């Protein structure tokens, strides 16, 4: 009986011991690693050889072209022409060096470029402030980045009477606010002093200037920023620089920054709208989000460029640079809304219920409980959207804005640097720029993801 069974299943049963296999040559060390990871079988060996061939043939060529044979200095194309130099010429970095100012500032007047530099510095400060995890006073940083920076950048970059008027209004408004707060922070203690009914809250123990300083930092910072700009305006002057002259990385960063500053709040609103229980609000949000996500950015830009001027009264005709800015901000907002919606959906119901049981209303619940958690979860998604946005800024080229890529393209038709290798150099420079920015952002998002995951692990 048993025999019969084994007979039938003989396929799987071995009757005799196999001869012992020879000990593996090594299971550790570089040789074993090479064998396990590169030559573990015939298919793998072939793949390895093919890949190695690709690397060996292309990598030295790239290094030779971009470094060894490259030309680093020169003032016109003669420096990069093989006939003139008398040796094979690779990348013409001299061209990048020569045109670097143009790549950064576009046609922004040379004497006014310090204004762009200040904005760049403020932008860098804001970015570091917000992104660096241990930076102090994050709320102040957010205020700086989302409110002060756009206003200052607008005044500094554009200048002219309009901006100066705005600056004057802002200073008046800020001073007035500061006055109000000043009175408010002094008044109770003065009152208490005279009435004798001292309220001994910790807050009131502080000297008045500190009391003013602590909660009202925002106003103080605004006052300082506007004051500094006003001093600049008075001493050096901020003549108007038309947006038609702006260009290069300035415009690229400007579009990206405007996209970020406006799309995030707008995205939050749209995401909340989409999750709302009120049918009309939900419907409108869904229509907007799905419409924008369903069409290419380029058609949105075309629409902003050709149709926006039609939709507003004639005398309002929006500035040529403002149009794509509006388009990009709305476009990014729709994508941002979907990312944030993901975060909102990931918040467990208990959080909502907990907040409601504490008696918080909708807005307080969102502001204090839900959004801080939801936004935190989706930081990687938000950063990824920013990466997409940053790459998409190049599309404004097509509607005639001189962004960084466009300045590269424009120099490629300039006979001063017309050499066979200029194009490869220009594109390589553009690639390095975009890669560093995008890759940096994606690294950041990965590190945030890790940190968040660490919090989840417990």
């Amino acid at each position, binding site marked *: 009986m048993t025999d019969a069974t084994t007979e039938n299943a003989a396929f799987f049963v071995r009757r005799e011991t196999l001869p012992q296999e020879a000990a593996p040559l090594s299971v550790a060390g570089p040789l074993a690693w090479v064998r396990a990871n590169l030559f573990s079988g015939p298919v793998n060996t072939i793949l390895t050889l093919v890949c190695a061939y690709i690397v060996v043939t292309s990598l030295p060529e790239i290094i030779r072209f971009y470094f060894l044979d490259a030309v680093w200095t020169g003032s016109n194309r003669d420096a990069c022409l093989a006939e003139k130099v008398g040796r094979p010429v690779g990348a013409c970095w001299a061209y990048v060096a020569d045109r670097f100012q143009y790549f950064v500032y576009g046609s922004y007047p040379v004497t006014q470029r310090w204004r762009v530099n200040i904005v760049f510095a403020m932008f860098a400060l804001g970015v570091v402030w917000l992104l660096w995890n241990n930076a102090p006073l994050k709320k102040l940083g957010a205020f700086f980045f989302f*409110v002060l920076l756009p*206003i200052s950048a607008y005044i500094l970059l554009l200048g002219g009477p309009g901006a100066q008027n705005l600056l004057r209004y802002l200073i008046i408004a800020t001073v007035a606010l500061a006055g109000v707060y000043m009175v408010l922070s002094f008044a109770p203690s003065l009152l208490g002093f005279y009435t004798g009914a001292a309220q001994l809250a910790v807050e009131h123990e502080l000297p008045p200037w500190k009391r003013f300083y602590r909660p009202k930092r925002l106003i103080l910072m605004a006052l300082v920023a506007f004051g500094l700009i006003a001093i600049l305006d008075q001493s050096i002057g901020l003549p108007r620089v038309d947006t*038609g002259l702006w260009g290069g990385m300035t415009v690229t960063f400007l579009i990206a920054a405007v996209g970020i500053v406006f799309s995030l709040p707008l995205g939050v609103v749209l995401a909340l709208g989409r999750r709302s229980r009120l049918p009309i609000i939900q419907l409108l949000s869904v229509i907007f989000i799905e419409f924008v996500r369903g069409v290419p950015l380029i058609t949105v830009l075309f629409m902003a460029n050709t149709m926006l001027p039609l939709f507003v009264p004639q005398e309002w*005709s929006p500035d*040529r640079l*403002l149009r794509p800015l509006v388009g990009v901000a709305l476009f990014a907002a729709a994508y941002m809304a979907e990312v944030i919606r993901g975060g909102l959906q990931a918040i467990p119901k208990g959080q909502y219920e907990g907040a409601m049981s504490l008696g918080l209303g909708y807005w307080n619940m969102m502001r204090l409980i839900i959004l801080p958690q939801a936004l935190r979860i989706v930081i990687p998604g938000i950063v990824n959207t920013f990466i997409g946005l940053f790459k998409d800024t190049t599309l404004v080229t097509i509607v005639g804005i001189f962004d960084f890529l466009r300045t590269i393209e424009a120099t490629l*038709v*300039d006979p001063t640097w017309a050499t066979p290798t200029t194009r490869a150099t220009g594109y390589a420079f553009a690639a390095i720029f975009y890669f560093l920015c995008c890759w940096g952002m994606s690294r950041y998002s990965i590190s945030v993801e890790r940190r968040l995951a660490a919090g989840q692990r417990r």
Partner: protein
Amino acid sequence: MNRFVSAALAVAATAAFAGGAQAQTGLLAQVKSRGQLICGVGPGLAGFGIPDAQGNWSGLDVDLCRAISAAVFNDPAKVKFIPLSSKDRFTALQSGEVDLLSRNTTWTMSRDTSLGLNFAGVNYYDGQGFMVRKKLGIDSALKLAGASVCTQQGTTTELNLADFFRANKLKYEVVAFASADETIKAYESGRCDAFTTDASGLYAERLKLGVPTDHIVLPEIISKEPLGPVVRHGDDTWLDIVKWTHFAMLNAEELGVTKTNLDEMLKSENPEIKRLLGTEGKFGEAVGLSNDWVVRIVKHVGNYGESFERNVGANSLLKIARGQNALWTKGGLQYAPPIR
């Protein structure tokens, strides 16, 4: 706090929109109160409208804007130039973003009638031509059978090109690009055998090529391209000003009034010159300008001939002959009605 921020943003937004916050009075009054003329020009066509490294514009079309600025403000620099691509130019003018378009724009019936625009004259008689490489060894556009032709999309050029090859029953392949830069780049790289645009543009674009002498402009002119300044419908005074600024420059040339001899000419007894320079009659005031408006134009910009030679003619890199653009007295087409 929030209200403050939103108020600030609202102010910022209004300020950003304030490109052309104008009352609905005449355009001349608006220009005067603004203290600046806003002129739509080409994004960079050598000889007609191109900014130098410092952002100073020059060119034949630019000179017309400067002449109007000189006539209105006695200062040729009170012009803001807005570079416009061929795709955006009409929308920009229609929407009031610019006061006039002086940007080698072809005067056609449909543009004049159905786009709500008025052409104020012809400051350059042009025609569409072809540029090819010298080494192709062809001397006529009729030998372009089977060729690839690069052109800019959204222009009359694209339509004329189709007409020409259709009329001559020649096969060809069109490669259309959105910008002039892309087009000339594609031609230079050999994507196309021929490059077509207005003849003036061919000469101007040729300067952008690595070795300009390697390329020749074929003799055929396949279309009429009268290029001129354009204004919106609805403000006839403004149209008159633009039109007569151009005519004044022509008349000045015809009467021999130049930048250099202006002071002597002011003393001239010739009644035509006296009327031109405003020493007799009140012709300037009739269009809302001062009577010495032509003096201002000639002093700051020069007459038409001077502007032509400086920008596109013998004294420029383009070296285009006067040809059709000579005065009618010299066998050309430029003819201005008299001032009287």
